[in-house]
């Protein structure tokens, strides 16, 4: 076999069919110069193969780029769950809109100032406590005065009754004394007048 008909490079690069590979391998065993050439080519290929692949510094980023994204209506149209969710969302929005639009009393939710509310509550509680205490004190004083008046009146009535009885008793005693005195006076007068008549 002629050395010029042997394609060692194609052999090393794996481009030969199986039938050719055997023919080249047989020739190389017998031909020293082709054997050396094959060794040099193998070493070259080995050196080239030692170069490792490098990792890309970052992932290809444009997958998230706008140009890759289908339009919103395409995504929605292609997705059954999204369509269902969108329908539910539209229904919920309609209910909410109805709730806001209907002429019901609108409640404005303002920001709650807890400190002010607390102050207001304390003031209200204090005011109510003062009122209740004042009313209780007033009622107690009034009851006490009433009770004292009633007791005083009772005592006074009892004293008046006592003094009236005493007066009546004294009056009766005085009257009795006066009657006695009048009787004595009359007796004395009678006695004196009897003496004069005897004297005449």
């Amino acid at each position, binding site marked *: 076999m002629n050395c010029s008909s042997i394609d060692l*490079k194609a052999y*090393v*690069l794996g*481009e030969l069919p199986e039938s050719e590979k055997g023919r080249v391998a047989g020739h190389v065993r017998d031909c020293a110069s082709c054997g050396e050439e094959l*060794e*040099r*080519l*193998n*070493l*070259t*290929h*080995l*050196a*080239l*193969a*030692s*170069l*490792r*692949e*490098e*990792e*890309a*510094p*970052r*992932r*290809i*980023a*444009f*997958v998230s*780029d706008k*140009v*890759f*994204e*289908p339009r919103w209506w*395409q995504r929605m149209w292609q997705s059954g769950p999204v369509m269902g969710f969108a329908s539910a969302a539209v229904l919920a929005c309609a209910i909410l809109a109805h709730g806001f639009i209907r002429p019901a009393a609108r409640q404005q939710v303002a920001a709650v100032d807890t400190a002010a509310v607390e102050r207001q509550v304390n003031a209200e509680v204090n005011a109510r406590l003062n009122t209740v205490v004042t009313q209780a004190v007033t009622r107690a004083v009034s009851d006490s005065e009433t009770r004292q008046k009633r007791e005083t009146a009772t005592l006074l009535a009892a004293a008046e009754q006592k003094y009236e009885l005493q007066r009546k008793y004294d009056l009766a005693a005085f009257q009795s004394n006066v009657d006695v005195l009048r009787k004595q006076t009359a007796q004395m007068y009678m006695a004196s007048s009897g003496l004069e008549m005897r004297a005449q």
Partner: protein
Amino acid sequence: MIFREVEDRDLIAKARRGDVDAYSILVSRWEKRIFNYLLRLVGNREEAMDLSQDVFLKAWQNLKKLEDAGRFSSWLFRIAHNEAFSLLRKNRPEVELTGDPTVADRGPRLFPVELTLAVERALTRLSDDQREAILLKVYQGFKFEEMAEILGCPVSTIKSRVYAALDLLKDTLAPVGARGVQ
């Protein structure tokens, strides 16, 4: 590989119907290979990254023009080739191999990093066409016919570029390879 091709076909079919998730999986499968191909070709990580983004963007925009989903890899590398050479033509003139191998003598055993540097240096001394031919053949494993499709050249031209590059690399890297595997 058969399953991978079948899955790629399925993903491509979905992506052609506008399925972004399917295309995202395709990107994740191919981005490392495309990035490394572009990196070895242009020699700059940032430029390679930007080019990778452009490649996948153009692929997405033109996916419906891909007639045979089984040729997706060739088609994708064709886009990458066009993008890379557009940049190379804009950035710098053609760089030809000077033919002065610096690591020709056998010496002490090389560390892996030295071997890597030697290979990278040897690759940069090839012309852009030769380097691309080696990248597609050795690192991406394409057949000559597939390379011809990617690069839009006859198979004979491809073969000529690969063989010429191998001859040049052999002078530089055969001794290095020998020291590296001692």
